[in-house]
């Protein structure tokens, strides 16, 4: 796994975009007719949602490649993507809850997409826990890849079942479409989170790679080999 600086650059660019997009959305974008200023939460909520799904889809791809091709690179990226996905999902649920309170008067409105995210959060957090309990690196790689595939396949099933379950009661959902006047801050923030996550997932994958290499490296002998320059 490389040592170059590109992830830091990418992440930094992402952060810069996020600052730009957020300032625009907070102070310069026009007020929405019905939701007023509360609608501005969308400028961070929607980009987080898109990227959470993107990162978890990348995790799924890494899992499939890890199972089919093997090698430690895909496993390292898998670990990074699952952790990133958990962070974004947790953030998403928090944002959704904060949005729901002034809008619907409740902290949770059982919106199908948000509820699916909550289920996903628990599923992938569980996979991180699984990873922490397996000592054998080969088994760890195979099992977490299998678990990620199984959890990801579940996503459409969870979404449809919850949507259906919720439709029998009053359907209260977060707005899907944002009118055209509001697109720019949204797009900028979306790319901001994207670049940030690309950089962070790569860095986290390097961490996973180094940890695994440290795991299987033979124990350093005392002094001698180091002194003679053999290590």
């Amino acid at each position, binding site marked *: 796994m490389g040592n170059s600086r590109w992830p830091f650059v990418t992440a930094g660019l992402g952060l810069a975009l996020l600052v730009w997009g957020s300032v625009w959305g907070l102070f310069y974008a026009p007020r929405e007719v019905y939701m007023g200023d509360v609608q501005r939460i969308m400028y961070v909520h929607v980009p987080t949602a898109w990227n959470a799904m993107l990162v978890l889809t990348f995790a799924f791809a890494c899992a499939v490649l890890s*199972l089919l091709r093997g090698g430690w690179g895909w496993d390292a990226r898998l670990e990074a993507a699952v952790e990133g996905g958990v962070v974004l999902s947790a953030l998403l649920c928090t944002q959704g809850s904060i949005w729901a309170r002034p809008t619907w008067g409740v902290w949770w409105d059982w919106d199908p997409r948000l509820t699916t995210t909550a*289920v*996903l959060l*628990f*599923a992938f957090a*569980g*996979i991180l*826990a*699984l990873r922490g*309990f*397996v000592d054998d690196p080969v*088994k760890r790689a*195979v*099992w977490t890849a*299998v*678990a990620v*595939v*199984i*959890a990801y*396949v*579940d996503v459409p*099933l*969870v979404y*449809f*079942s*919850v949507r*259906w*379950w919720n439709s029998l009661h009053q359907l209260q959902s977060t707005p899907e479409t944002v009118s055209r006047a509001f697109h720019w801050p949204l797009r900028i923030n979306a790319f901001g989170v994207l670049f940030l996550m690309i950089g962070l997932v790569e860095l986290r994958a390097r961490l996973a790679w180094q940890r695994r290499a440290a795991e299987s490296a033979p124990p350093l002998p005392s002094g001698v080999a180091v002194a003679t320059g053999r290590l």
Partner: protein
Amino acid sequence: MERTRARDAGRGAGRERSRLSGFLAALRKDLLLQWRTRAQFVAVFVFGATALLLFSFAIGPDAAALRQHSAGFLWLGLLLSSTLALADSFESEVQHRALEGLLLLPADPRALYYGKALANVLQLTVLGVGLVPVIVVLYDAFTARIPALLAIIVLGAAGLSAPGTLYSAMTAQMRARNTLLPLLLFPLVVPALLAAVKSTSLLILGDPMGQLTSWVALLVAFDAVYWSLCGLVFERVVED
């Protein structure tokens, strides 16, 4: 390496027949095992029934509310009991190191999986059927549509059993297994749980809008996806 070669040699001849006979042999072994440990099963049943009792204490003696939510209680009780039942399913294999022995046989590991998963479906179905009289008594939750109820219990049990057997095989080989199995399983089976609860609820409370078939279809879809997927990956989970 030798294991794969031995397995492939056995597979070469009469592949289809060996897969089916492997499956039947695995099923027979697991059913026999379950019969021999039926005292444990009784304990799991008592656990489930106790859970149902505790749910009613959580709600209060409101007969209407209890009846309204009886389907949910039944499936929650069954879900909680299933973690005990499923956790035990690979217990003997791991304890007596029988897993490696089983994998050396020229039988498809998939046959092993399906045999055990089917045995688990049977066990969970018996458990579910056993808990029905409990909800009839405790929550006044009766339905005349017995065959439909049985079908839903079987389908729901199948939904729990497919990923449950896979994760049981995984967690049986590691520490903290009793925490990890429910942790991994519960978020996964949400669609099956929702569908089973809604279907059962419609049977108990009535189905004026004819939604039952749709929910059952969702349950069948979940079962189809996971019975094929888990069988496919099982080999990777138990290989050495």
